[in-house]
């Protein structure tokens, strides 16, 4: 059983009256086949440090606002400088090969197009299981990410493979629908066999300062997920400032999101190194205060191996080596996988490879 999922603490935090359905206690952990085959986290110590300030933050609307507005501000210049500094690290040879394999195992292979067909999802699922059939020892990716109506196809193809099925839901990508519609969206994905749910927050409500509304929606979606891991998409490209990104990340963590995810991939800018670092810092701080491990998923705009390795360096330096694990860090990407496979071949075969040697998605 996967005891690490941050069920207890977060649900307890959500309880004091803030959520629309505060009666639901901690869900039984490990009910669904979540992220099968991935490494499991050690359980947090039984004497969980339930931070008084954190539980107070979710008591009501105004205390939530006070908490989020009271988060320390971010120095954008310093943050971007640090991101640029870490990006200069040189990862070569064996370390690079290991980084590539780790990055492959962290990929959420994504197709979120209006033109998606069951056939495309089937071929994507085949690629997810064996990304490069010509090369032995290439790990499977972490999950396949599709729209809810294609979850059933993906789940059928990936049964027993250890590759998760992630589904976007809650009126992705805009998130502009009534809560009931969003919850129905989530339930349909869960019923079809999704093991992970990617929800979008209501950016309109967040930017208007209605933090409580966003919080309640995340809590409601979390309950509709019935134990599946929940990724909360902040859509950082629409939040405007790093301070807002930090507030949104904490809001998602307080509401019990298992992942904080940068973007839908439909808005530019999407995942940038500084933004990912803000999220990594948030989960690291969350771990320091509660002992729970939460995950981060940058998505959109990461296309090259170099970008991916830079993100891994940031993961190691900002959050810590514990996060160098597909359970706690993912890449939401489609074209990244091909570049990783090409670079892997280049490392193995000793000469540059070309796009003719990997599948066209």
């Amino acid at each position: 059983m996967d005891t690490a999922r941050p069920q207890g603490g977060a649900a307890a935090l959500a309880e004091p009256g803030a959520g629309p359905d505060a009666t639901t206690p901690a869900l039984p952990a490990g009910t669904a086949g979540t992220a099968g085959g991935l490494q499991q986290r050690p359980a947090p110590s039984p004497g969980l440090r339930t931070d008084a300030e954190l539980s107070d933050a979710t008591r009501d609307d105004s205390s939530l606002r006070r908490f989020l507005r009271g988060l320390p501000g971010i120095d954008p210049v310093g943050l971007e400088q640090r991101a640029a500094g870490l990006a200069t690290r040189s990862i070569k040879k064996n370390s690079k090969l290991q980084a590539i394999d780790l990055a492959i195992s962290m990929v959420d292979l994504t197709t979120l197009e209006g033109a998606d067909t069951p056939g495309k999802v089937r071929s994507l699922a085949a690629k997810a299981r064996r990304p490069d059939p010509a090369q032995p020892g290439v790990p499977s990716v972490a999950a396949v990410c599709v729209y809810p109506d294609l979850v059933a196809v993906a789940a059928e193809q990936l049964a027993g493979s250890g590759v998760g099925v992630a589904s976007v839901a809650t009126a992705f990508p805009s998130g502009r629908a009534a809560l009931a519609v969003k919850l129905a969206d989530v339930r349909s994905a869960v019923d079809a066999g999704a093991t992970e749910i990617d929800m979008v927050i209501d950016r309109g409500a967040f930017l208007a300062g209605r933090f409580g509304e966003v919080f309640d929606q995340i809590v409601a979606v979390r309950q509709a997920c019935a134990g599946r891991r929940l990724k909360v998409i902040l859509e950082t490209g629409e939040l405007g400032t790093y301070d807002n990104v930090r507030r949104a990340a904490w809001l998602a963590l307080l509401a019990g999101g298992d992942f904080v995810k940068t973007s839908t991939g439909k808005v530019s800018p999407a995942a940038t190194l500084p933004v990912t670092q803000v999220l990594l810092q948030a989960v690291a701080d969350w771990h320091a205060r509660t002992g729970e491990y939460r995950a981060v998923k940058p998505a959109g705009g990461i296309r090259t191996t170099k970008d991916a390795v830079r993100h891994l360096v940031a993961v190691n330096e900002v959050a810590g080596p514990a996060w160098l694990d597909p359970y706690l860090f993912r890449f939401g990407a489609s074209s990244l996988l091909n570049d990783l496979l090409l670079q892997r071949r280049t490392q193995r075969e000793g000469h540059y490879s070309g796009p003719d040697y990997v599948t066209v998605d």
Partner: protein
Amino acid sequence: MSQQRLPVAKTYKLFVGGAFPRSESGRTYPVRGPGGEFLANVARASRKDARDAVVAARKAFRGWAGTTAYNRGQVVYRIAEMLEGRRAQFVDLLVTGDGADPAAAGAAVDAAVDRIVHFAGWTDKLAAVWGSANPVAGPYFSFSVPEPTGVVAALAPPDDALLGLVSVVAPIIASGNTVVVLAAPDHPLPAIALAEVLATSDLPGGVVNILTGDPAEIAPHLAAHGDVDALDLTGAGAELRADLERAAAGTVKRVHVPTGSDWTAPPGTARLRAFLEVKTVWHPTGAVSLTGGGGY
């Protein structure tokens, strides 16, 4: 009051994807004239520059191969126009760099312009010369059409810095290929000046990429590169040539090894043909009527 003007020395850089970057490695090497006098510091490309150039060439290939032969001919002709306009600059480069006498240098530049015009005229004649409508025993049309090979890596000849380079590059791009060319290591200045001509003509960025540096260092990486489709070994010495052919075999590249190198002679068609592939298409002639008098 008379003021002495400071000399403005030119920075010679690479030509990759339509831009003029320095070498990723930051390295340069000095180029000297025939008397051993210092002429310029030139970028010394690394294998990563070669990789970037291949990426640029691959990116440009689809668009360049997709242009109509008519349009491609116009663009190549435009290169000749621009080169003609800079005639004096190239004569000067050949005189100071190679020690050629001005008359010979002028003749070389004229020959280079004429060579480009020659290949510009070839673009819409390739299909007529190497294509055919094949007679077949069945209700089908069968056509053979020449198509560009893809990304070509070429080594420019060391003996003729301008005319040799032009004679290598022009036939490659005339048929719709894109090229990464390594300039002659001892005479790179006309090659970089030619890059300025290419950049100001209508050639899309990445169709021609020019690297300066040591071919023995860079060429093996290009020869083994999985995304390079063909190799032009005009400028490779005998020893390097064998190594490169061996490396190219790993990814089954088309390799062109020319015989003879008299650049003033008529260019012939061998270089055009070397980087063409012939595709044959079968197509039904249409419905065959059961009552006779059908589609064929």
